[in-house]
């Protein structure tokens, strides 16, 4: 249902301006040229017909041909997608590894300077625009220290800076969720029971509190992966990485609608899939939701 709506939206989006042919042929093209292009692309048919035709082919993985690259859209995406996905997965892993321990630390030392420091760092992380962070990292590690490449993904070192930048999208949110989840858990009645049972502190924290605090964080990391992928446009442009985001940016700048449609649709499907995954993971982890 949601997918269908998004399908219509992404179609409508690219057809809304109407002057597709002009943007392809250029502003000074003759009326004949435009009519010809319109006909070639099937753009002179009624909109619903175009939509059904497009949707039908899209369902079979056929998004037509790129105006710009004169290549099948599906093969373009196939070529660009792995890089983006790889970066996204590395980034979410980095985010979890950074956010969860520090979130726990902040919660256990709630109200102390450790908590305040972690909070301020998280807020600052949220405030730094990712493209600017990317540029600054390039300046420091790429240009200043010359440790890491400033663009491209020629070897594994190329992945470091972009994944840090992408991870920054998710770290503050996950950090705060972990912290507030842990704080709630440590104040909960069941942790009080665990203390009344005389359990060691380590098992109170690691078994009783963490499990409950972690459930929403794990579930939300799937959604955060979606945000990271969504943010890949900016990062890929900054680091000059030929991923789907970069492809989309290039296509938008040139009005290459078949590619835009396909990428928007692809992202939407990924988002919906990840949201579903998040619900499933949440349900699998929480015994109260299991078997529903």
């Amino acid at each position, binding site marked *: *249902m*949601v*997918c269908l*709506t*998004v399908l219509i*939206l992404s179609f409508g*989006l*690219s057809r*809304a*301006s109407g002057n597709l042919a002009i943007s392809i042929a250029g502003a000074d093209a003759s009326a004949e040229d435009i009519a010809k292009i319109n006909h070639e692309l099937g753009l002179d048919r009624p909109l619903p017909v175009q939509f059904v035709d497009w949707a039908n082919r899209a369902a079979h993985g056929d998004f037509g041909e790129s105006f710009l690259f004169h290549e099948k859209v599906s093969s373009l995406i196939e070529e660009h997608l792995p890089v983006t996905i790889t970066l996204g997965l590395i980034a979410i892993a980095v985010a979890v590894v950074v956010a969860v321990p520090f979130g726990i630390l902040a919660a256990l030392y709630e109200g102390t300077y450790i908590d305040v420091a972690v*909070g*301020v760092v998280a*807020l*600052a992380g*949220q*405030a*730094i*625009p*990712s*493209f*600017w962070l990317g*540029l*600054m990292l390039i*300046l420091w590690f790429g*240009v200043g220290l010359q440790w890491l490449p400033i663009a491209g993904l020629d070897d594994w070192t190329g992945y470091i800076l972009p994944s840090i930048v992408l991870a920054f999208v998710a770290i503050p949110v996950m950090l*705060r*969720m972990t912290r*507030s*989840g842990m704080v709630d858990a440590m104040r909960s009645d069941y942790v009080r029971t665990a203390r009344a049972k005389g359990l060691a502190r380590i098992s109170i924290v690691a078994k009783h509190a963490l499990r409950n605090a972690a459930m*929403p964080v794990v579930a939300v990391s799937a959604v955060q992966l979606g945000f990271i*992928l*969504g*943010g890949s*446009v*900016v990062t890929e*442009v900054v680091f000059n990485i030929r991923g789907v985001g970069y492809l*989309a*940016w290039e296509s*938008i*700048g040139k*009005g290459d609608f078949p590619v*835009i449609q396909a*990428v*928007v649709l692809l*992202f*939407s499907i990924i*988002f*919906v899939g990840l*949201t579903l995954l998040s619900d499933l993971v949440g349900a699998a982890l929480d015994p109260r939701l299991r078997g529903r």
Partner: protein
Amino acid sequence: MRTRQIPLLVGAVIVGVTALVALAAPLLVPHDPFAQNLAQRYISPAWMAGGSSEHWFGTDGLGRDYLSRLILGARISMLIGVATIILSGTIGTVLGVLGGYFGGKVDAFVMFIVSCRLAIPLILVALTVVFMVGSSLTVVVLTIGLLLWERFAVVSRAVTRQVCGLDYVAAAWAAGCSRLWIITREVLPNIVHHLVVIATVDMAIAILLEASLSFLGLGVPPPLPSWGLMIAEGKDYMYFKPWVIEIPGIALAVLVLGINLLGDGLRDSLGANTDR
């Protein structure tokens, strides 16, 4: 108690000062922010070698005074932030309150719209729209405002449901109050503190989003000095003059940090927990 208010205070000062600067921008700018002077390109800021007190923050690639452009940029960021949250706040709150209050089919419909919105890749669609309609300040505000309401909707739906479960709403209903009356007198005043917190969160996001769009070349059109655009314009020169991206970047980060601190402080002092 006092120390917990410090972030709120810092945030309020940052946002307040920025707002004042934005309002008084035409009075404050030392130079015309649009006046080009190709003879004076990339003059360093006053505190660096080669700088002069004529241009405190130096000049950009077209010889325009950087401080003046920064000040005008504050105006653009604040305008974007405020205008979009008014738009998105209205859309989101209306949807959320309706869904939360009526429940059932209305709620299912609201949740459907929200999940559709969540399935849309924000930056890509914003870029596409701006590309097609043509970039202008109004278009950017409308685009971001029309895309960024989901947090308002989700939160206002949740807190409306919570408030509606409380007995005083039932009491008003039993006292014969109309639905409109209940929503405006009983529900809204009791969820407004949550909305204020969301407004700060979304304002920060809107400002960052505008900067990203402008950075990618499909946001506020030149020669308007959006901070994101200033970074984009300075990008090619950053290896030689890092300050051309450092100055607008820091400005952006400080403003957004200020808004976040304000939001956090408000969350604590108003008792609105929206972390989950």
